[in-house]
């Protein structure tokens, strides 16, 4: 579904990604793991062109994203739930969800998508008139994922959904990811919480200082001595 070939990208003179190649097949859940500053967020940003790759190619279902403007990528079925959730803090929950359905084809299905998201997250329905910035971190994460689902995407990009949340809530967030998977979405998730995320996904890539260092089945990586020593801390 999503194929990255030799993607390099960065911020001005600072290069964050070096020749990254990666693939996500339809129906799969794939994680990109790695320490802080490895370039995980930059990787997702290079896909949705928040930063424009300097070389390499990104293809979504065979369509090259090279000439697709950033705001049109969502129309190809890619929803990016960014780092730190990035809700519009002054808008209500429902208005945030509405923003997720901004593209033309999603507007037509707005009512059904909204009912679907409320069904998935009854808490969001209770809070629908609440200003998003006043909710707890876990609720905001729910709202951010809900906003991503409002466009009816095929592929969901999740950037550190568990970051900055209390341990109990982190568990809930991973349960949520599991549910999203069972709903049939293809998921590419970036996480620092390696042990937890590897239990949710099929495959994973290990990213270090902007380069892919290892990849494989999630269970293999979880068993991998180097990964365990370096990141899991057991």
């Amino acid at each position, binding site marked *: 579904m999503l194929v990255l070939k030799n993607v390099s990208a960065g911020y001005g003179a600072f290069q964050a990604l070096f020749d990254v190649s990666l693939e996500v097949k339809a129906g799969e859940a794939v994680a990109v793991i790695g320490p802080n500053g490895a370039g995980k967020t930059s990787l997702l940003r290079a896909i*949705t*062109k*928040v930063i424009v790759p300097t070389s390499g190619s990104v293809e979504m279902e065979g369509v090259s994203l090279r000439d697709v*403007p*950033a*705001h*049109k*990528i*969502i*129309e190809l079925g890619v*929803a*990016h739930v*960014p780092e730190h959730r*990035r809700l*519009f*803090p*002054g*808008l209500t929950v429902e*208005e945030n969800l*509405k*923003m*997720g359905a*901004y*593209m033309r084809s*999603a*507007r037509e299905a707005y009512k059904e998508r909204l009912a679907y998201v409320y069904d998935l997250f009854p808490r969001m329905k209770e809070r629908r008139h609440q200003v998003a910035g006043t909710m707890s971190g876990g609720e905001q994460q729910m709202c951010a994922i809900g*906003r991503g689902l409002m*466009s009816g995407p095929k592929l969901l990009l999740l950037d550190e959904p568990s970051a900055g949340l209390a341990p109990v809530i982190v568990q809930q967030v991973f349960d949520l990811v599991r549910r999203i998977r069972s709903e049939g979405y293809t998921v590419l998730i970036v996480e620092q919480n390696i042990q937890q995320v590897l239990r949710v996904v099929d495959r994973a890539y290990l990213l270090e200082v902007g380069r892919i260092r290892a990849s494989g089945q999630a269970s293999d990586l979880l068993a991998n001595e180097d990964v365990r020593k370096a990141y899991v801390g057991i």
Partner: protein
Amino acid sequence: MTEILTDPFLWETIIQGLLFGGVLALLSLGLNLIFGVIDVVWICYAELVMVGMYAIWWLYVPNGVPLPVAMLTGILTVALLGVILHFVVIRPILHTEPINQLLVTGGVLFFLQGAATLVFSVEFRTLGVFMGSVEVGNMMFPWTRILAFLTSLVAVAALWLFLKKTYIGTAIRAISQDREVMPLMGVSPSRIYLTTSALGGGLAGLGACLLALLYDIHPAIGLSFGPLVFLICVLGGLGNLFGGFVAAFIFAEFIALGGYYTEVEWGYVMAFFFFIVMMFIRPQGLFSRAR
């Protein structure tokens, strides 16, 4: 006490103030959209209104274009000017410190004033349109002011509905909160800025239509109400359209009653003094900032 209540001149003053408030409310509406909602500073906002007034005057008086056509053209001219202002002046510095917006549009303010002086001279121009007055008891209320009042009521309600109910309106409210994330929602930020600038300019043009009916036109006319409309937006709570509406009436009554009891200038002094005191008590404005 009963003397005050039965004083027809006082009542007339209060109602005149109310009508003047309608003019101020309409003038501040476009600015509230730009300054309050999308967080961009057009310090030259009142000069855009001035350009609109000259456009209407130039079409109607020397060129004999029918007034409604002249006014519509005036609105479109200022809308276009708003778009040019955004893409030529604001956009290149949008990612820098907000103070830069104040400085460059400050430059535009003097440019527009200077250009108007060169083109139209400092002579006072007037449309010379008299719409008559309504007489209620012994009180006289000019139709132009009533028209301004009603127009501002309709415009506030329409803008509020637009911002609240439509997708693009919601995006306009969202863009100042997080610009970078907008494309991830499928929103093109430059299209939002284009729409908002045209709308803000168009509202300035609408203000110009009514102002041109009420006052003489000269290159420095922006200075007489420019600071006032900024303070109205701040006092009402930035971006809060109804707050701006109420604040416009408060300012107008201060000025009207000041004029009644002493002089209009004292009314302005009192209004600004009230503003300063309020900024200490409620720095966020009378009403909270609406998004």
